[in-house]
């Protein structure tokens, strides 16, 4: 009798833990449609295509070896190799090309064409996963070989392509699905990868907002002023900007609050659309007023894919058809 009582007490004690675990699992693996994946695929297809086109005239100049380009590719690769020799870089492809009697210039051209083609293929959804892998690999090589020339947009592109590559492609709006009639994926797997993207964005904004909040310049507007008149981001004339100098502190504080509170208000149904709208406006403004077009686009794509598409559990359509488990 006493053992039965202790067993029942044990079950009661375990129940809250068990319930918490169930909540955690259902948070990690919600059922979702693949519409968000379509947005991510097409958005990244556009991003990769624009990235390749924007750099077409300087591609060889940026990644050429010593004595041919802006700075020798080998310097960036040496710094990367110090961290780990296993990180992909153009040096690998060029060494492979050399073994096959292919010049460095040809290898770099093939890499650029491969990146552009992967961008187009992602836009169409044709050979979605191979295209995502090629885009991730070539872009990573470019980011690491030109590590000294990289900036924030490159990290976000790598992350987004990394998630896309691992996500359950193809989606139902892709050419792959239309032609090959591929099976649609498990809604819980789709939900999981969307959760990963959502949680990642919460990290991005919380840390970004926290770090900004620690600087005095974001509270008095001076950082916003400096970021907008700082070359090469000075697209807006300072004469025009100075007329709004009393608004700058308010905008600076708003940016800090918007970012640091993102992980809370983006999850609440009542505030989600307001927060998402404000974040999208902020990134569009960064793109248009500072000329950071690729940075703005990747952030807009990631935000819309993560939070802009209604999830299946909130009443949107579920994935239909046979599921691949």
């Amino acid at each position, binding site marked *: 009798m006493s053992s039965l009582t202790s067993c029942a007490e044990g079950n009661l004690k375990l129940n809250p833990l068990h319930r918490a675990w169930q909540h955690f699992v259902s948070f990690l693996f919600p059922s979702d449609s693949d519409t968000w994946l379509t947005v991510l695929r097409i958005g990244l297809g556009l991003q990769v295509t624009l*990235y390749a086109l*924007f*750099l*077409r*005239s*300087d591609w060889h*100049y*940026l990644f050429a070896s010593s004595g041919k*380009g*802006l*700075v020798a590719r080998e*310097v960036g690769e040496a*710094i*990367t190799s*110090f*961290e*780990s*020799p296993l*990180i992909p870089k153009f040096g690998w492809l060029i060494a492979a090309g050399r073994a096959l009697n292919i010049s460095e210039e040809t290898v770099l051209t093939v890499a650029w064409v491969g990146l552009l083609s992967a961008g187009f293929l992602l836009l169409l959804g044709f050979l979605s996963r191979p295209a995502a892998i090629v885009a991730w690999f070539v872009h*990573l090589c470019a*980011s690491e070989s*030109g590590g*000294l*020339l*990289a*900036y*924030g947009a490159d*990290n*976000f592109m*790598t*992350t987004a*392509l*990394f998630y896309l590559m691992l996500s359950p492609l193809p989606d139902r709006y892709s050419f792959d699905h239309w032609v090959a009639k591929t099976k649609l994926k498990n809604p819980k797997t789709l939900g999981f990868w969307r959760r*990963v993207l959502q*949680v*990642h964005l919460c*990290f991005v*904004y919380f*840390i*970004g907002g926290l*770090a*900004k909040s*620690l*600087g*005095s*310049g*974001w509270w008095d*507007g*001076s*950082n916003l*002023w*400096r*970021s907008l*008149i*700082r*070359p*090469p981001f000075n697209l807006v004339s300072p004469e025009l900007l*100075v007329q709004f*100098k009393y608004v700058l502190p308010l905008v600076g504080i708003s940016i800090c609050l918007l970012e640091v509170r993102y992980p809370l208000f983006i999850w609440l149904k009542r505030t989600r659309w307001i927060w998402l709208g404000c974040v999208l406006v902020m990134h569009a403004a960064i793109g248009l007023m500072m*000329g950071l077009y690729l940075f703005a686009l990747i952030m807009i794509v990631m935000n819309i894919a993560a939070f802009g598409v209604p999830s299946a559990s909130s009443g949107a359509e579920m994935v239909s058809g046979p599921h691949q488990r």
Partner: protein
Amino acid sequence: MHFFLLTAVCLGGVFWLIAQGSTILPSACNEYAHKAELAATWCLGKTASASNPLRRSIATYLHAAGIQAGYSFFAPNVPSHHQLTLALFYDDGRVEYETPHVRSKAAALRLDSLLDKLPEQRYESVREALVKMLVLSVWREHPDVKKVRATFEAVHLPSATEFEQGKGETLEPMFSFDFSLRKEKQE
């Protein structure tokens, strides 16, 4: 594991900013932040030897996932802008001024990113070599130049009030190098 590493990278970055004393937090926090930064660094395996397989595996994963750097862009404050001016000396006494350049705006953003990294302590060992390469990129377009003086400057921008009063940007020379075809000398 993915988000554990991401947390370590992000917090490490924030603690580094605090430890540098560049935030509005009292200086008493700097020491604690430094210890916390070391803890985050330890989590990422960076205290192990460079050839340690675990350290290399973590670094590879971080780079592959694009999470090797934190997200403290333009924080806690917007850093100064930097420029590299090259004085090209010809045999006939002419002096022309040039800057390293690229064709597209997208690549120009990257060149500016490189120039802003040059003053950082971690690039001290490769700084002269990088400046030399940038000089060489311009020298190739002016093969008859005999000597190049590369001057690296921090550009301090005026505040909004100073701008209204007519004050412009001020330049603070940080270092300069002289390059010639036969010999190189640092000033």
